[in-house]
């Protein structure tokens, strides 16, 4: 790799990469609205913004995966246009994407080099050279992996390391990292920081996307903030405080976001005893009262979703009992769970939550068809009525009830999913990352609605990885780690530090 001589001292450096006026719309969402961004050689620019602010979208525009509706991209002052990920690579831009986009059936080395493998005789892939070079890159980032292992044998964290290695396999001048530390352990994160330092010293421009302020302050030289698809601020890290950034990100003070509520827990609605699963979780006990919001915190991969899906009847536990209003019930399928008044708003909205190809009203009535039909025959009028009742209550923004859900924005899709469950008149509602990928306005609406539900006497479980959300909404919090309950905390015991400690397993005491 050549060394692009560091020119930190040369006073006003020219940006290596310059975006201006970029706009990108999806059906129902203006993901990017006239944004600009500058990246400088030998500097780390942190891009921050709430979920759904458009950070990943700009990465995809920059790497040729999406084509922007408008705006320009210039590298070294020269305007460029990308039509595929290949073009971006050729222009010296590489990225570690937020999703791990890899191939299970190929080896680690092939994953790293697919699309630009070293060629040998007759233009054939030089497997030996490819493996050696892959191993070199892996060693450079201290990844404990062999280049020849099939990818399918790796865990999520190791897969993420492969994705990082892939980004480094091209000699790029611009390196983009979209939440690279989300799936990594502390040790791996430290190694990643070292790597970033090294890339910096080689004169590369780095775009670093993260939700973690500590790391942003630790490694970034500059910042850029997006809010709701718009560029709302940029500058030097040294000029700002954490509070300033938060203010920029959300556009208002943090504590205003959450609805104030008076907690008045009623009778016990749900009790779970000795829930266990051979590989996912063990020894789970919990109780939930009417009108209560129980937060579930944990690091990504702690097994919260698995547990909730078992309660909802998707997977079968190996031991344990669920009591609803004191009565033991057997739950073998989601249909059983719904019959018992337990409903689940999954975290993967597009795949699990909504049926995107069906119209809104059909999505809403899907679990309540018994209500809106007579002896198995549909009654369209009743369906529309039920759908209207709940979608209007949730202030859904849609052109008509027979519009496909796939055409709605993320937040509105989430509202359809919630409406669907409320229409079944549940006793317990489980919300898994309810505001993931939802714009700020909708987020507040979802929170307000959650509070309303609890006030109406519904028992709510809220799984979330966002500490502010957990702090702002829960009456009680269960922290999970590696499939076990690490702690149960009352509202007065809650603080960001305790949550993180329990979730990471460092020292039980608060």
């Amino acid at each position, binding site marked *: 790799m050549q060394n692009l001589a560091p020119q930190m001292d040369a006073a006003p450096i020219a940006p290596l990469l310059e975006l201006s006026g970029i706009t990108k719309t999806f059906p129902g969402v203006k993901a990017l609205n006239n944004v600009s961004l500058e990246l400088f050689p030998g500097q780390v620019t942190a891009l921050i913004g709430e979920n759904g602010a458009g950070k990943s979208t700009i990465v995809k525009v920059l790497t040729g995966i999406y084509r922007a509706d408008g705006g320009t991209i210039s590298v070294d002052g020269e305007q460029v246009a990308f039509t595929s990920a290949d073009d971006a690579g050729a222009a010296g831009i590489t990225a570690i994407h937020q999703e791990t986009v890899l191939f299970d059936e190929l080896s680690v080395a092939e994953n790293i080099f697919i699309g630009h493998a070293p060629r040998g005789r007759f233009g054939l892939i030089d497997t030996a050279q490819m493996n050696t070079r892959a191993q070199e890159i892996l060693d450079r980032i201290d990844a404990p992996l062999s280049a020849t292992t099939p990818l399918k044998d790796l865990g999520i964290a190791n897969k993420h390391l492969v994705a990082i290695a892939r980004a480094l396999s091209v000699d790029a001048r611009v390196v983009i990292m979209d939440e690279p530390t989300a799936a990594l352990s502390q040790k791996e994160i430290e190694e990643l920081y070292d790597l970033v330092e090294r890339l910096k010293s080689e004169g590369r421009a780095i775009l670093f996307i993260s939700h973690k302020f500590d790391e942003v302050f630790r490694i970034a030289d500059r910042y850029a903030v997006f809010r709701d698809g718009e560029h709302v601020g940029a500058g030097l890290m040294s000029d700002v405080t954490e509070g300033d950034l938060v203010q920029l990100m959300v556009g208002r003070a943090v504590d205003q976001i959450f609805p104030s509520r008076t907690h008045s827990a009623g009778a016990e609605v749900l009790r779970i005893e000795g829930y266990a699963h051979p590989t996912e979780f063990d020894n789970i006990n919990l109780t939930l009262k009417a009108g209560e919001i129980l937060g579930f915190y944990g690091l990504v991969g702690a097994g919260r979703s698995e547990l909730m899906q078992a309660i909802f009847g998707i997977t079968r536990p190996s031991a344990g009992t669920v009591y609803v209003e004191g009565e033991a019930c057997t739950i073998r399928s989601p249909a059983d769970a719904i019959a018992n008044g337990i409903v689940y708003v999954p975290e993967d909205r597009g*795949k699990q939550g909504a049926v*995107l190809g069906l119209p809104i009203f059909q999505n809403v009535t899907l679990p309540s068809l018994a209500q809106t039909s007579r002896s*198995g025959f*549909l009654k369209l009028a009743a369906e*529309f009525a039920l759908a209207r009742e709940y979608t209007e209550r949730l*202030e859904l923004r849609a052109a008509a009830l027979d519009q496909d859900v796939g055409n709605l924005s993320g937040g509105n899709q989430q509202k359809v999913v919630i409406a669907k469950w409320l229409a079944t008149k549940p006793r317990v509602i489980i919300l898994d990352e309810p505001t993931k990928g939802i714009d700020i306005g909708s987020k507040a*609406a979802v929170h*307000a609605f959650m509070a309303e539900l609890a006030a109406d006497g519904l028992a709510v479980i809220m799984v979330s990885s966002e500490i502010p959300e957990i702090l702002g909404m829960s009456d009680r919090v269960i922290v999970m780690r590696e499939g076990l309950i690490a702690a149960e905390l009352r509202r007065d015991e809650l603080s960001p530090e305790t949550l993180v400690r329990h979730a990471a397993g460092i020292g039980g005491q608060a």
Partner: protein
Amino acid sequence: MNDTARHIPDRLQSPALKAFKSWETLLLAVAIAIFVTNSFLSPYFLNAWNLSDATFNFTEKAMIAFAMALLIIAGEIDLSVASIIALASTAMGAALQLDVGTWGLVAVGLGTGVLCGAFNGLMVTGLGLPSIVVTIGTMSLFRGISYIVLGDQGFRGYPSEFSFFGQGYVWWVISFEFVLFAGLAVLYYILLHRTNFGRAVYAIGNNPTGALFSGIRVARVRFILFLLTGLMAGVAAVCLTSRLGSTRPTIALGWELEVVTMVVLGGVNILGGSGSIPGVVIAAFVMGLVTFGLGLLNVPGIVMSIFIGCLLIGVIALPRLWAMRRT
């Protein structure tokens, strides 16, 4: 947040307008065009008896196509239907040797169909196998059993009442098969478009995981769909056996692809999630009219198949080409 709840209308456009812009309308236009062309090209076409005879070219296949349409909308496929006909027909022939009466024969035929469907359904839902693979296997297996039983022999000598199902007329030129076809079309229309079950079929075809997470018993619905398809193959077996008055292991050879062609031509998305029974009904007529019309012109059958092949690709390609031109 505003206090007055925003009103969301039920529909963006009226159902009539939507129906007018639909695939079915396009297909109906094609069918009418073929009908008119045929009447001009052949003097024998517009004759009640001839048209009635022509319906036999598609009625049995269409019966299976109805159930297949549901199956394909739900994201599955059954390539073994023609083999189920062979096996069901063989079972009826075997029952005939045991002096089973007409209704007994019908029961045996339908029962065999259901059993075969259940076998496919179990393999797919129980073991979680892709249906295309399973039914490529059972396609050989079912017809293979028929070969084992019959070898180079055939069954014949079905009772004369039995011949009603495939050769009988209910009124004037209206054959029993045609009445059955029409009746089943209505039943399947109601099942798919007017019941909770039909809604579940669409949901599963669109997003099986989402349907499961919405409390739909996905495996059960899929299993029932395989049963239904088997049953319809059994019904077709009764009609066809009655029409031929005999059973050979080669009966209905190659029908699976014709049935799938009919379903796809009817506007059912082969990847699942969309399609309608009226579409399939019109497609059945289109295929029947094309083969009969070309037959009257003494076009060899194999040349007709070119026509059907082009029709299949053409009707799907044209809207896409059109969309490409406009962008």
